[in-house]
């Protein structure tokens, strides 16, 4: 076992030495395999996410409000699990194992849904465990991506991963509704097929993703103090602050699509199509924009990702334009995802020492998730009390302010050009 790993490390080292240039341009096998894991897992979880509201309302009489509240709580819980798992993965140098645990937990949850029937308490617990699984796996997996990729190609690597991830997220609902069309109300079958996808995804990471080079296996992991000191690193702190500020100022997806749908007077049935449209753009643009970020600077591309949202917000305040304008708007939203999600991970990873990658990426994930939660609550409240136009104007002003502040902070902490 050890020998196999040692020799693979040697081979990897050889390759790195021999083909330094090509190695930097090519996407590492580990990244593609992790992308495949995410693709399969996302098919699995989005299958369930697409039918679960239907199932809960049908089987358990949940109201949308209950659903939303419970969901918000679970997301919050997952954010803090993420911090713990990121640190644990660094501490034990077991990114692959910790990420696998997260994938495994989510896979087990799909099987749990088959067994739970309509017991509300059981479904609630399973949905929570599923979210915890997501919280556990995200930071160690992103750390694994960043650790398997040469620094210059980080943007492209995260781009490839996110493109595959989004492909899975788009396929999941299609598979689920395809199954329900074949066999109406066969929720058990949907859950079972979802479980199969999850197990296949788990199989990819457990069986095919190589463990990281044994080089550092003997060294002790970082102490809690080192991990806690992360925020003292100026560049990293700047990135966390920037991501949080921008996150708070952004209109959350669901509200943005709701606003677009209202503004354009689209039928409620067309609502899911807005998600499909922007996801399609995200999927197509993730890799090219990731590569672009590697070339022209990740900070710039990251900021540009928020700048492109401004015309979309502006369009909400202007008279409704036709379908081409909507298509352009969705493309811009997709481009914004492509320029902010994976690029942020690449941006943060580049500033983090290898030994604290997991912890650092977990801090970024948690900060952005909390920021999004605040944004969601804030925008919802504004919309309710002051109307949609006011809410959009306030968000627009906040976003412009956040972009300017972020630009200042990122420029002030810019690393040496040679390192960029």
């Amino acid at each position, binding site marked *: 076992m050890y020998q196999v790993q040692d020799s693979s490390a040697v081979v990897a080292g050889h390759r790195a030495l021999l083909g330094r240039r090509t190695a930097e341009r090519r996407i590492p096998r580990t990244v593609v395999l992790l992308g495949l894991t995410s693709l399969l897992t996302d098919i699995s979880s989005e299958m369930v996410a697409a039918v679960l509201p*239907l199932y809960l309302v049908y089987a358990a009489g949940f109201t949308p409000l209950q659903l939303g509240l419970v969901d918000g709580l679970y997301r919050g819980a997952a954010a803090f699990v993420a911090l713990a798992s990121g640190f644990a993965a660094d501490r034990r140098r077991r990114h692959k194992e910790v990420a696998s645990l997260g994938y495994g937990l989510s896979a087990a949850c799909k099987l749990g849904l088959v067994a739970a029937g309509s017991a509300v308490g059981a479904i609630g617990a399973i949905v929570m465990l599923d979210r915890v699984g997501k919280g556990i796996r995200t930071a160690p997996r992103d750390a694994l991506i960043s650790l398997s990729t040469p620094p210059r190609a980080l943007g492209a690597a995260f781009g490839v991963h996110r493109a595959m991830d989004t492909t899975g997220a788009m396929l999941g609902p299609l598979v689920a509704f395809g199954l329900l*069309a074949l066999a109406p109300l*066969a929720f058990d079958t949907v859950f079972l097929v979802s479980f*199969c996808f999850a197990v296949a995804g788990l199989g990819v990471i457990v069986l*095919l993703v*190589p463990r990281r080079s044994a080089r550092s296996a003997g060294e002790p992991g970082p102490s809690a103090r080192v991990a806690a000191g992360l925020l003292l690193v100026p560049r990293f702190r700047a990135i966390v602050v920037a991501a949080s500020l921008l996150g708070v100022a952004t209109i959350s997806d669901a509200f943005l699509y709701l606003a677009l749908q209202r503004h354009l007077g689209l039928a409620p049935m067309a609502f899911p199509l807005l998600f499909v449209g922007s996801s399609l753009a995200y999927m197509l643009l993730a890799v090219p924009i990731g590569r672009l970020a590697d070339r022209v600077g990740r900070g710039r591309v990251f900021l540009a990702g928020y700048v492109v949202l401004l015309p979309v917000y502006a369009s909400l305040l202007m008279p409704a334009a036709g379908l081409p304008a909507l298509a352009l708007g969705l493309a811009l939203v997709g481009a914004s995802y492509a320029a902010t999600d994976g690029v942020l991970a690449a941006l943060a990873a580049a500033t983090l020492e290898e030994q604290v990658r997991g912890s650092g990426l977990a801090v970024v994930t948690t900060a952005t998730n909390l920021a999004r939660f605040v944004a969601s609550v804030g925008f919802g409240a504004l919309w309710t009390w002051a109307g949609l136009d006011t809410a959009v104007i306030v968000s627009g002003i906040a976003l412009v302010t956040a972009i300017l502040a972020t630009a200042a902070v990122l420029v002030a902490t810019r690393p040496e050009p040679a390192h960029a």
Partner: protein
Amino acid sequence: MHSRGRLFALLAAVCFIVAAGAVVSAVIAQRTGARTSAAHFAAFERPYLVFRSLSAKAGRSPSGELAATSVAAPGRERRSSGRICDRLHVSATGGICVGRGDSLLGAYEAQLLAPDGRVRHSIDLSGIPSRARVSPDGRYGATTTFVTGHSYAAPGAFSTQTLLIDMRAGKVIADLESFTVARAGRVVDAADVQFWGVTFARDSDRFYATLATGGSTYLISGRVSTRTARVIRDNVECPSLSPDGKRIGYKKLVGTKGKTWRFHVLDLASGTETPLAETRSVDDQLEWLDDGHLLYGEGGAIWTVPADGTGAARRYLARADSPAVVR
């Protein structure tokens, strides 16, 4: 590394086979369900009982399958059709199965069944199904749904919609609210008028139903052809006309605290009211087993009680509700 690759190939193959097997079996279950239903209406000698067979799986959402059994030996042989209904009623010439449609959003619909069990028409319903009836000759049907609220037990907190349906054309004839109803010589035109629980006479044209207004319920007698009805008695809910057309079984509100119902039988000619031996408060529309006995669903089983007030209620069929006797 090689062995792990092989292990993964094996795992992927197992996943694929399990997933494909689950899908194929679900599709086959769906298909066979549709096929057996075609054969089952003529399964037993008349009279036979069609009912909703409740799944034995505990903790599941209660899904009820349209099923049939013999009246002489109820439950000895249960033939399930695979058709899922929330409420059903069947006569010799057709039936109504109110359930979730095949649409992905699963809105309720009234599936109008041909004598062989195939769905001839379906009509979209709004709200949660409560009652369904088919006239003895299968010409008309009626459904009641809760448009808001979900129980008759909270006065003022629910509203119902009762539709009369032309079974052969597959069309809604009218919402009962569009009928002209007279009470003591005056037309009832209050805003809070609601109807539920229709029962048809042998000629199909005459029907009885519950009218509610001002916090009270009334028995109305009407005609489909003239779209009129009149109040004939107070405090009657969910009437059910006997096969001989002389009596009506119904639930009557008794006591002052909360909603407590007792089953009664009304002799239409004399106006005599007889309380039945069932002592529980049951919320169901009665079905006549024969001229001497009634059936109703309570607590996941079908019960029977004599129509003359004697004897006692006894369990007739386990794991079942929504009884309909095909004569």
